[in-house]
């Protein structure tokens, strides 16, 4: 019960039917999911994402320092080549985490995504005979259909998501084995293959970067116009300029770093696209707003006229599509569809969400946080591999980080 952690349980009238003497519940100490830093009150949900961003930087600095050697006097970890590899490694988890976030925010869970991704990958690899477009769209369609089926069972048949998707995990794993007959199916279509391991040409990267900067500028300007139209105070020229220039510098730096070793990797572009769409869905649409409401307080959401069923079904559909996309990235990266592909991926995705500040109780979490969570996990993997840490220790460390991330968060909330 994460929510009760902040509330003092003592001396509060236990509510039985006759109680709640009017006035008695008055002004009781409310849970305060806000943390004050100086004079800024930051919602704790985003605070965890920022704390994790800070932790990420520490992890990077550590690995950078630990990988200093004669060949790499400044460290190997954040060098263009390794950094690019790191981002490629996180792409699949990051994509899945974006979908998982929406499911978890709505108070649900999806344990089947790894198996679904495995199955969709096998279908895509098998369907290469029909051509590129049928092959790729088959994976996405398979994901969507499975997501819709499982979502319908959760939303309309009222079977708990944990059960439906646990059953799905077993069933789709079985389906992978059956469909592939236990064989590894190689990826032969060049475009499919390049999806997982190639780079866009440097000029294309620059063009995309310019487009991104233009979009950032356009959004800021439009935003200010809209605020003025509603008689709200709009940001001044200076602030607006900063809001455009700082992200622009990040984009420029990123593109230049990637171009210095061949270009921006395609999986990273796919991840960014999925994450941007995910952030847009959760933050700028009624669909996203309703997911938070449903996960945060289903009774209040229902009484506010929100259809719980429709939106939970939709969340699972999005998750399915995302699992289809992830299956393509993974299959392409490995170069073949294997019967055990996607094993345990669901847990990586859930861990990424949780590390990034998502509450498994629903109602809290951001796509940004989930992607940062995925980046932390990938950084630990990559860094420890560079240092030749044995794989069993890697697992122990990742497990400890997951528990510690939530533990620190609970500690902070109790104090606050």
């Amino acid at each position: 019960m994460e929510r009760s952690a902040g509330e003092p349980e003592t001396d509060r009238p236990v509510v039985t039917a006759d109680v709640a003497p009017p006035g008695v519940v008055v002004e009781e100490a409310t849970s305060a999911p806000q943390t004050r830093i100086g004079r800024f009150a930051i919602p704790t949900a985003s605070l965890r994402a920022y704390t994790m961003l800070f932790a990420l930087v520490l992890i990077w600095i550590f690995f950078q320092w630990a990988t200093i050697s004669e060949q790499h006097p400044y460290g190997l970890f954040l060098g263009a080549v390794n950094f690019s590899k790191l981002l490629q490694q996180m792409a699949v988890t990051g994509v899945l985490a974006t979908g998982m976030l929406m499911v978890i925010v709505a108070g649900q869970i999806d344990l089947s995504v790894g198996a679904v991704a495995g199955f969709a990958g096998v279908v895509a690899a098998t369907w290469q005979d029909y051509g590129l477009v049928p092959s790729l769209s088959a994976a996405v369609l398979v994901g969507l259909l499975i997501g819709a089926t499982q979502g319908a069972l959760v939303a309309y048949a009222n079977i708990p998501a944990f059960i439906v998707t646990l059953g799905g995990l077993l069933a789709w794993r079985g389906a992978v084995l059956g469909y592939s007959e236990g064989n590894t199916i190689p990826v032969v279509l060049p475009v499919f293959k390049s999806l997982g391991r190639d780079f866009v040409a440097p000029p294309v990267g620059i063009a995309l970067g310019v487009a991104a900067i233009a979009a950032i500028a356009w959004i800021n300007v439009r935003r200010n116009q809209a605020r003025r139209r509603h008689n709200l105070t709009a940001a001044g020229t200076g602030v607006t300029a900063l809001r455009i220039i700082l992200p622009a510098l990040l984009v420029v730096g990123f593109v230049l770093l990637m171009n210095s070793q061949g270009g921006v990797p395609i999986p990273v572009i796919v991840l960014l696209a999925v994450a941007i769409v995910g952030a847009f869905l959760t933050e700028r649409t009624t669909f996203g707003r309703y997911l938070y409401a449903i996960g945060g307080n289903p009774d209040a959401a229902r009484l506010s006229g929100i259809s719980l069923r429709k939106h939970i079904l939709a969340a699972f559909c999005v998750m399915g599509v995302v699992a289809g996309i992830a299956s393509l990235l993974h299959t392409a990266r490995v170069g073949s569809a294997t019967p055990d592909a996607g094993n345990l991926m669901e847990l990586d995705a859930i861990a990424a969400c949780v590390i990034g500040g998502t509450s498994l109780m629903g109602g809290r979490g951001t796509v940004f946080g989930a992607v940062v969570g995925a980046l932390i996990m990938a950084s630990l993997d990559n860094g420890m591999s560079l240092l030749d840490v044995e794989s069993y220790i890697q697992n122990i460390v990742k497990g400890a980080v997951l528990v510690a991330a939530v533990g620190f968060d609970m500690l902070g909330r109790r104090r606050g």
Partner: protein
Amino acid sequence: MTATNGAALLEMRNITKTFPGVRALDGVSFDLRAGELHALVGENGAGKSTLMKVLGGVYPHGSYGGEIFVDGKPQRFGGVREAERAGIAVIFQELSLVREMTIGENIFLGREPRRFGVVRREELYSRATRLLENLRLAVDPRTPIGELGIGQQQLVEIAKALSQEARILVLDEPTAALANAEVETLFRILRDLRARGVGMIYISHKLDEVFRMSDRITVLRDGRTVGTDKTTDLDERRVIARMVGREVGDIFPQADHTRGQVVFEARDVTVEDPNVRGKLLVKRVSFRVRAGEVLGVAGLMGAGRSDLLMGVFGAHAGRTGGEVFIDGARTHITRPADAIRKGLGFVTEDRKRFGLLLDQTILNNMTLAGLSKLSGRFLTDEDAETAAGERAMVDLRIKANSVLTVAGTLSGGNQQKVVLAKWLLTNPRVLFLDEPTRGIDVGAKQEIYREINRLAREGLAIVLVSSELPEVLGLSDRVLVLHEGRVTGEFTRADATPEKVMACATGHTQERAA
């Protein structure tokens, strides 16, 4: 045990209990003799349950002021267990039985007869059988609780109390969920217990039962004892007068609303109990509201007031019957979304459970119900929302740093205003208010009252449910009184006196009350 009538079995002296900002009990004294049934009555919130929680050890020694004596010996209960050991058993209205376990297991839960840590099932069930026989309850103690009706479950609770050799038995609204035949069984058992010297504290809103069963009656009001007298020295009218007692102060801004057309009408609304098939919580209730009118709905806890509103609003899908008319046209409302589309708004009771997203900002809370009207159907328009939210902050005088403050950090009064704002942003024509001022301070109450009057002046049709009688009487143009799911009275503002309304709320029909 023999009935030692007369000696004080229990004495509570000068009990005071405060919650932050409120004095729930203010120097209450109460005593109970062996072999006596002592009724405790009072309005909702008078302090009855708080007093019983002090007695039962729910509020441990040190969290309240005053003294408790059992058999003349001072007691300091650190918890429920210690109170039980002193022979006190409290049976709350919501039963505390584990549905999946058997009768016997429930009776001895946590006190199973055992040897070397192993539960001795034969002894457990044979003792349970004897207890059930005592209560003339002819069921196998191996039956799971879930298979019993509410009435039998209640008797199991009593058996559990007796198994602890309770000499002081507290019954909180024991007949609320019972059918008539079950009530008779319960009463027979209570008389048996009385004959065996058990002292009983009986809390009930049903005055006829109180007069039938009790030896003495204590009335509580606003956390104080108004009086304790022998039942034979009292009549219902005097008890009611003691219960209401208070003057309707001038805290209610008088407002004469000019009434328009009937906007909303409900006919023969029934709502079924979700747990007991066939049992009706609301029984064929009809009402209508005009534009600019405030219809008050009075009644005691369990009268079905909230269920009536929930049912009409489409929140009790599948167990609501009756017809709804808006502007005279028959309308079908099967989900809250329908109700909202037809112009209904519903400030629900218990804002934390049904009203707010405590983790989210004021703004996200305010725009939740009217989001698709404020924004596009799919894209949200943050700026339009912010503008509307900031206007509502000013209009309703919500005290917070900004619309981005997290709702859970606000005071009760401001939280309630956020919920109100949420519904006003849907542009409703009919607004249901269920306990809109529960648990908020006096200042915020005043502001909510002013807002209710303003909305009525602007032509909204308002249905106001409140447990605070002065509030209903002070704000409403008309008052509807419910008792056990049925309308027992309807008064105009001029006719409605606290005594008449309370008489109807305790089960009298209007004719007798008038």
